[in-house]
């Protein structure tokens, strides 16, 4: 058993266990920390799937950005209420049934397919500098969606700042 395969199973087990723990988490803060674990494990899996740039973006943007914002949100809402946030569960049986049925359908669909093994693919991709190619492609072939997402990000962040600011209301 070689080292990448061991790392692959480690990251896969970490993501799966953290996802199961998220199902039973009663605290929003613990839930956010479990999602950080899942995101970091997925970044490791991206490295193993030859997507280094996506992995670094995942760590920088998701684990460093979104989750910090979410933890800020948790702390602000618990500060407003003055008591810690405890999550209640609703519809556990039917929700679990929906999830299990969906998972079963997806597993059935995946098990029907045959995919090419990655060994033949991996040989050709060793001389392939993915990060440089991604950078060149972002500035040449994909420059229109790149700029469009930039404008979308600007609009969303300005809108979020305007919505979250409270100078319009006298409360708090």
């Amino acid at each position: 058993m070689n080292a990448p395969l061991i790392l692959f199973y480690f990251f896969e087990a970490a993501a799966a266990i953290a996802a199961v723990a998220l199902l039973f988490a009663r605290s929003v803060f613990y839930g956010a920390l479990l999602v950080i674990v899942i995101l970091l494990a997925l970044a490791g899996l991206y490295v193993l799937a030859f997507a280094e740039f996506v992995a670094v973006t995942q760590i920088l943007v998701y684990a460093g950005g979104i989750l910090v914002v979410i933890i800020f949100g948790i702390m602000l809402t618990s500060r407003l209420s003055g008591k810690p946030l405890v999550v209640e569960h609703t519809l556990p049986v039917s929700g679990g049934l929906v999830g299990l049925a969906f998972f079963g359908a997806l597993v059935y669909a995946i098990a029907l397919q045959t995919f090419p093994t990655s060994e033949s693919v991996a040989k050709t991709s060793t001389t392939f500098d993915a990060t440089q190619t991604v950078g060149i492609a972002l500035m040449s072939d994909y420059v229109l969606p790149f700029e469009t997402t930039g404008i979308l990000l600007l609009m969303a962040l300005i809108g979020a700042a305007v919505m979250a600011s409270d100078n319009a209301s006298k409360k708090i």
Partner: protein
Amino acid sequence: MAPVHHFLYLGAFLFSTGLIVIITKRNTIMVLLGLELMLNASNLNLVAFNSLHPGSLQGQMFALFVIVVAVCEAAVGLAIVLRVYRQYRTSVPDHVNELNQ
């Protein structure tokens, strides 16, 4: 290197887990976390399929754009959660049922 269907099984598992989290949790921030989980599961599938085509970058590009759109969604979603919390004093989505305060 692991076969690609392991990525797909993990992606299906994470997507189903996110779905259960969205349905069962009675907290808006937890619902947002489940949404992030589902977006990440789809990203994992995109990257896994892209690893089958080494010369092509379309899967990785789409994963990058999905990450950026997820950033926008999380920022706007949390701003709405904070605003709703100030207005209604609750973070349970079922309790937000008045149109006019």
